C-alpha cells in the first residue's frame, strides 16, 4: 500500500477517537448485551428444536459457495452442478419438499463465518452444504459443529480436518487434498520421469498438493519451488525449469495463474519437450476455452472428470452439456454428488433428520450412486475413492476433453485418517 494512503487512514482513525463519547459507548454496551441475549435465546431454541424427533414438513438447506471474488469461477460451476441436481431431484430431497437458502463465502474465511452465522442463526437452516476452498473450510467447521448441524463439503479437504480436527458434523463428499494427486508420484516415475521439478502456488493447498505428488516418486526431485499467489508471469520460473535439466514438471496452479502458466509453457516451446503433470486444478473444463490448444497433452490426475463411464455420470454429463454447452468441471460433478448423498441419507431416515444419530449413520452409509464411480466414507468421514490419470485431448470439432490414461489409486483412503479420533 501507498505510504500516503496509510498515513491518511491513520489520521482518520485518530480523528474519530474523541467522537466516541461516554454516552455512545453506553449505548454500544447495551446493544451488545441485547445481542448476546438474543444469541443465547436463539441457541436455546435451536437445542430445543433438535430435541424434537419427527420429520419436518420441509427441509431448509443452506448452500454456501464462493459466488463472488477471485474464485467465483469455482462457486459458479458448483452452482451449475447443484442446480442440475435440483432438476434431477424434482424439487424434493429424499422425498421431502425443501427450500434452498444461499450464502456467498467469497473464498474468504471471514466472509464465510459471517455468512454461516446468518444461515445458522437467522435463516435457521437444517443442513448446510457447499464451500469452495480449503481456507474457508478451516474457518467453517468449528462454527458449524458448535451449532450441531451437518455439513457436506463440496470441494477440497485440508489435511488437518481429515486428521486431528476431524468433526462428527463434517462429511467431505469431495476429496482430501492429497487424494487428488494420490499415486501420481509412482505414475510419473513409471512414465519415465527421472528428474522432477515440483512447483505450486504458495499457500496451504499448493504445499499439500505438491507434497502429495512427491510421494512414491523414485527419481530425483531437482527443485520444489513456490510462487506467490498473485504471480501471473512465469517466464523466470520456466527458464529455471529448463536450466534445471528436469524431464518432468508437476505444477499446481488453479484458475487464472493456471491459464497463464499453461499458455506461457506453450509459448516457451516446452510442449512435448518436458512432460507437464498436475492435478485437475491446472486444466479442466472451466479453463479449456482460455487455454485452448496450449493445454493439449498435459497429464492431470482427478477424482472426478466428465469421461468417467457409469450410467449416473452419463446422464449427468449429457444433461450438463445440454444445459451449459460444455463438459462439467469436477466442481460441478462433486456438487451434484453432494446433493445425491444428502438425498439418499434423508430418504434412509424417512425425512426424520432431527434424529441426528440416525441421520449421521445414514450419511455415513453414503448409499447413493456417485458420478465418480466407487465412493464410501472412511471413519474420519472423508472419502475412500479412486484417483484417475487423464490427459487433455482434442475432439474432432476442436473442443478439449480429458481422456483417461489409467487409475493412479484405487479405493484409496486419505493418509491422515489415523490421526482422527472418530472410529
Amino acid at each position, binding site marked *: 500500500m*501507498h505510504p500516503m494512503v496509510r498515513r491518511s487512514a491513520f489520521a482518520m482513525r485518530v480523528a474519530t477517537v474523541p467522537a466516541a463519547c461516554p454516552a455512545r459507548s453506553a449505548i454500544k454496551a447495551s446493544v451488545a448485551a441485547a445481542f448476546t441475549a438474543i444469541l443465547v435465546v436463539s441457541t436455546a431454541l435451536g437445542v430445543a428444536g433438535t430435541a424434537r424427533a419427527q420429520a419436518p414438513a420441509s427441509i431448509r438447506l443452506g448452500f454456501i459457495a464462493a459466488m463472488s471474488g477471485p474464485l467465483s469461477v469455482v462457486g459458479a460451476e458448483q452452482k451449475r452442478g447443484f442446480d442440475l441436481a435440483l432438476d434431477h431431484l424434482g424439487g424434493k430431497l429424499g422425498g421431502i419438499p425443501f427450500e434452498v437458502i444461499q450464502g456467498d463465502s467469497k473464498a474468504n474465511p471471514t466472509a464465510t463465518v459471517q455468512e454461516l452465522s446468518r444461515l445458522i442463526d437467522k435463516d435457521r437452516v437444517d443442513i448446510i452444504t457447499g464451500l469452495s476452498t480449503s481456507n474457508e473450510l478451516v474457518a467453517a467447521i468449528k462454527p458449524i459443529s458448535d451449532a450441531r448441524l451437518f455439513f457436506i463439503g463440496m470441494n477440497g479437504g485440508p489435511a488437518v480436518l481429515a486428521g486431528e480436527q476431524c468433526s462428527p458434523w463434517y462429511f467431505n463428499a469431495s476429496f482430501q487434498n492429497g487424494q487428488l494427486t494420490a499415486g501420481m508420484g509412482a505414475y510419473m516415475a513409471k512414465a519415465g520421469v527421472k528428474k522432477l521439478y515440483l512447483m505450486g502456488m504458495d499457500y496451504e493447498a499448493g504445499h499439500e498438493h505438491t507434497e502429495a505428488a512427491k510421494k512414491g516418486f523414485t527419481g530425483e526431485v531437482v527443485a520444489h*519451488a513456490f510462487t506467490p499467489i498473485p*504471480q501471473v*508471469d512465469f*517466464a*523466470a520460473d520456466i527458464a529455471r525449469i529448463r536450466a534445471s535439466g528436469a524431464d518432468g514438471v508437476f505444477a499446481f496452479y488453479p484458475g487464472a495463474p493456471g*491459464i497463464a502458466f499453461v499458455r506461457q509453457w506453450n509459448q516457451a*516451446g516446452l510442449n512435448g519437450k518436458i512432460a507437464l503433470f498436475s492435478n485437475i486444478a491446472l486444466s479442466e473444463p472451466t479453463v479449456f476455452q*482460455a487455454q485452448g490448444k496450449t493445454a493439449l497433452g498435459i497429464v492431470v490426475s482427478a477424482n472426478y472428470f466428465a469421461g468417467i463411464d457409469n450410467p449416473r455420470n452419463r446422464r449427468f454429463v449429457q444433461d450438463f452439456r445440454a444445459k451449459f454447452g460444455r463438459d462439467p468441471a469436477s466442481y460441478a460433478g462433486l456438487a451434484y454428488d453432494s446433493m445425491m448423498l444428502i438425498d439418499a441419507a434423508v430418504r434412509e431416515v424417512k425425512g426424520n433428520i432431527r434424529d441426528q444419530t440416525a441421520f449421521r449413520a445414514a450419511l455415513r452409509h453414503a448409499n447413493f450412486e456417485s458420478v465418480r464411480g466407487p465412493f464410501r466414507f472412511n471413519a474420519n468421514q472423508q472419502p475412500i475413492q479412486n484417483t484417475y490419470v487423464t490427459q487433455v485431448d482434442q475432439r474432432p470439432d476442436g473442443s478439449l476433453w480429458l481422456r483417461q490414461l489409467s487409475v493412479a489409486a484405487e479405493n484409496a483412503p486419505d493418509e491422515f485418517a489415523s490421526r482422527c479420533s472418530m472410529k
Partner: protein
Amino acid sequence: MTAGLVLEQAFNGLQFGMVLFLMAVGVTLAFGVMNLINLAHGSMLMLGAYFIAAAAQKITAYPLAFVAALMLTAVAAVLLEVVVMRPLYRMGHLDQVLATFGVSIAVNEAVIMVWGREAMFVAPPDWLDGTVALTETISYPLYRLAITAVAALAGLALWLLLARTRLGMRIRAGAENGDIVGALGVNVRLLFIGVFVISSLLAALGGVMLGPLIAVQSGMGDPLLILALAVVVIGGVGSLKGALVASLAVGLIDTFGRMIWPQWLGDVVGNIVANASVYILMALVIAVRPSGLYGNHAA
C-alpha cells in the same frame, strides 16, 4: 548459470519491468499532476485486455483490433474521469482510495456481467507466435520480445510528449502547481482529462499485450497494480524517471532472485526471500530515502 541463461533471464526481467513501467507511470502521473491516488488503475489494464479479446473476435487484422481496443479504453477513461474522478481531485487521499477501490470492484463486476466469469482466450498474432534462438540451446518467445519493444517505444513516446510538446510542458507545469497553471489561462479540466486518458492508455497497452500471456478475467489487473504501487513507492511518488528505474530494478531483481536465492539459500528459505525480494527492496529504499529514489514530494 550459463551465459545463455543469464541472457534469457535478463530479457525476462526487462520485459517484466517494462510492463510494470506501463502500469506504474500512469499511477505516478495521476498522483503527480492531479494529486490522485487511483486504485482503479488495474481496471484500465483489464479493460484493455477484454477489449482486445472482444475486438479480435470481430476484426481479423491484429493491428486494427489493437487500435480499436485502445480507442475503446480511451472512451471508457474519459467517461470515468468526468463522472467519478473529477470531484475526487480536491478530496483527501482516504476518500480517493475508497472511491477508486469502489470503482475497481464495480468494473470487475461489470466485465463479469458482459463477458462472464470464465477467462477469455486471446491468441497472439500469428506473425508473433514463434521463438527466436538466443543461443544454440535456448530459444526465446518472439511475442515477449515484441512486448518489451512496444513498451519501450511507448515510454519513449511519453518522454517526447512530456519533454518536447506544449501539452507536455503544461502537464509538467500542472504537476508543479495546478492552480497557477489554471490562473494563466490553461484549461485545467481538459489538461486533467488528457493526463487521465494517457495514464489509462498506458495501462491498457499493458493489458492488450498481456492478454495472450495471462488469464483475461475479472480482477486480472489488481495483482499488477499492487506491484506497480511498490514500484511507485520505490521510484518516488510523482517521478517518471523514478518509475522507469524502479520498474526495471524490480523486474530484474524479481527475475534473477528466483534463480539465485534458491541456489544460495536452499529451496525453502530461498523461495521465501525470492517472493519477498520486491518488498524487501521497498522497505530498504523507504528506510534510506523515505521519499523514494527520485521523489521530491516530502512523504
